[in-house]
């Protein structure tokens, strides 16, 4: 149906030009050629097109990565906090308004200690709670420390509890995570000092001992239960791994399921973003497809109880987690 060449005109009005088979053939070849070239380019770069997560993902996760992974090896402190508001609602705070005793209490703790927050809403507005390392704003809330969220806040009179384990020295902040409330005063400092007592927080020097473990991602047929190596009630389900601090560990994984998985060792099984010791195999952005596998070698760090999990969001919660104990 392309262009025309002269042909016998059989009408009075105008010259009708019709195409020839050759030109039609040429056009079909051109179109097919374009498709083939495109297909070659597409398939030869098959993985490239969907390889990179959006830049904003790294920015959002970057906040959480700053908060160091923490092992609870020290003491537990309890801190009660109440959201309060000034009567003109201009000033917000924890426990007491500015210039009063007990206003935004500062918490002193050491690496490895746990703070249990008991928070309740003593104001007339909505609030929610979380701990972050960021010195402004409401992003980077450390998983496990949140009570409610800006989208599902605590109503007046409601309350809840959460925990925060200090993983590194420095200053963290407990805040109200409703946008703007931190700026209006609902923020307090958590000052973290070095780990107390002997070797609890320090990693041993490399021992030269090597361990190898094989972990397979498995799924139940209804996809409701996920695990490593075997389903619950079967042998070798989520095997416990025990090594000494400083040992070299090699873990080989294989995806025996029908879904996507990835691997990492974390200190908080709910925090799949903070993989420690460079132990990650694949990641949510570029996971292991069914049948694929990989391995990682790393040195076990400070003594404590850690977890190896599948780092796809939700999979650890559905069962893909096991203990990784460093002695």
């Amino acid at each position, binding site marked *: *149906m392309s262009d025309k060449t*002269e*042909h016998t005109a059989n009408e009075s009005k105008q010259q009708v030009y019709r195409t020839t088979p050759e030109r*039609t053939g040429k*056009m079909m070849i051109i179109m097919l050629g374009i498709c083939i070239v*495109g297909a070659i380019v597409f398939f030869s770069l098959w993985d490239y097109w*969907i390889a990179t997560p959006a830049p904003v993902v790294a920015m*959002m996760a970057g906040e959480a990565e700053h908060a160091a992974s923490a092992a609870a090896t020290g003491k537990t402190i309890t801190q009660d906090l109440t959201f309060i508001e000034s009567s003109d609602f201009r000033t917000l705070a924890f426990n007491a308004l500015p210039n009063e005793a007990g206003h935004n209490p500062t918490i002193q703790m050491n690496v490895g200690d746990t703070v249990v927050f008991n928070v309740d809403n003593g104001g007339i507005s909505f609030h929610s709670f979380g701990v972050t390392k960021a010195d402004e704003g409401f992003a980077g809330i450390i998983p496990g420390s949140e009570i409610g969220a800006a989208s599902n806040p605590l109503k007046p009179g409601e309350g809840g509890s959460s925990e925060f384990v200090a993983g590194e020295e420095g200053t963290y902040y407990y805040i109200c995570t409703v946008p703007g409330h931190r700026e209006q005063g609902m923020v307090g400092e958590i000052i973290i000092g070095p780990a107390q007592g002997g070797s609890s927080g320090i990693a041993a020097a490399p021992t030269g001992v090597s361990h190898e473990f094989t972990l397979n991602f498995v799924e139940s047929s209804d996809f409701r239960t996920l695990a490593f190596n075997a389903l619950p009630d079967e042998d070798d389900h989520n095997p416990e791994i025990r090594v000494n601090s400083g040992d070299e560990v090699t873990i080989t994984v294989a995806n025996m399921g029908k879904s996507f998985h990835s691997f990492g060792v974390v200190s908080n099984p709910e925090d799949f973003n903070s993989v420690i010791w460079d132990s990650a195999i694949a990641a949510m952005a570029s996971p292991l497809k069914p049948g694929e596998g990989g391995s990682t070698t790393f040195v076990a760090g400070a003594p404590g109880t850690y977890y190896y999990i599948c780092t796809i969001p939700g999979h650890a919660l559905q069962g893909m987690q096991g203990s990784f104990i460093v002695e």
Partner: protein
Amino acid sequence: MVLEFQKPRPIWQIMFSTHHTDIGLLYLISSLAFLFLGGSLALAIRAELFFPNIEGTGQIIADSMTFNRIFTVHGTTLIFLFIIPFASAVGNYFVPIMVRYKDMAYPKLNAIAFWMIPPAAVLVWLGFADFTWYAQPPYSIISAPGPAADMWIFGLKILGISSVLGAINFVVTILKCKHPDMSIGQVPLLAWSFLVTSCIIIVAIPTFAAALLMLLTDRLGISGFFNPAMGGDPIAYSHLFWFTFHPEVYVLVLPAIGMMYEIIPRFSRKPIYSYNSGIFAFVLLAIVAFSSWAHHMFATGMSFTEKTVFMVGTLAAVPASAMHVFNFIATMWNGRIKFATPMMWAVGGIALFFAAGAGGVVNSAMPLDFSTHDSYWVVGHFHLFVMGTIAFASIGFVYYMFPYVTGRMYNETAGKAHFVLSFVGTVLVFFTQHVLGLFGMPRRVFDYPPIPEWIAMNQIASVGAMIIGTSMVIFLINMIYSSAKGELANIEDPFGLGGKYYYPFEAKNPHH
């Protein structure tokens, strides 16, 4: 009809020409190519869904990521690379002739608008993004991998600009360049449909252009319009998107209705029942189109008042569409109808248009939408529009244009076979999908639980899809073969309708 100015012209001269018939031809060829490419993707989807993947059987596509990419590109291609360019093809070819002007108002701009399509198509097809043709955030911001997603965004940006440039051209050509002796009330309804469509495009598309830009900056992390973690609201995107794309579905359908206004009076050998009603219905539809966008968002948590307003806006568009159906049927009434291939397609299109609209009324009734939203009912409903009405009218018009463009006749038997198979296939696929949706199957799923009713209906739909696929192969062969070696057509009256009732501007309709 004048097809060519000079004797055999080299291909590059035709490709870079700015004459409206050449550009119309380029749009036509590229849009039909994308019809076949996008349609093949649909066949892949239906093949995958033939069996649920029990114990690893019945799985043809490697993984769900690939499947998600396939249906994303399927939708994007058929809407933006087939339907809209095809309408541009018809418009470019015929509108200047219909308003008795030598070319479009801005020929160079016209060529630029066409040539934006290949690079945009390359971006979309190479990237093969996975976030559906809606690109709904937050998924499209935080979860969709790049560079596919970014390529899609850029591709659609370019296509949007191309649409707007074409729309400007049509409006100026029809309003300002029409023959001095021709009043606006004498311009054929096909040209009117392009005028109205272009006005909708000019008002609606910029909103989506803004939304795309915002989506891109959100992906880069520089802004937080739609990203809750940065203080944004994903529903804002839904509003922007549907504010464009609900009117956009009328952009898709109005040229098809215009094409039916060409075919039906011709082949009924009767003038249009009411030219004025046609214009009134076009204009009313264009205005009411802007009042119903959030009926796509009934389940997002809107308030009762908001939902009521948009339900009323949606229902208000029905009488305008109904006017067109009445017009068609009244035109055919008592006519001496010749059921050549184009007429079969047009009549089949009217029937499916009615069915699609009826299903749409169900969707717009608020509580009923909670049964059908994002299920296969919606898939069946909109496909009855885009395939059953728009593709049918478009294909019928291809058959109608064929002798004028190529100077030859296509094979009538093959054309009729194409219609019968396509009609049967379309009914099998899309009517079944309405029922499937009522049984609860969600859309955009790579797999489904082995519920016997779902399996049966998916299989019926897949069979229907293969029937459509077969018919399209017949179409392709017919088109290629007949354009090179078909019987010479009688340019005066290729369909044997009698009378000088076939050149739009020469119609001796006493009512004009």
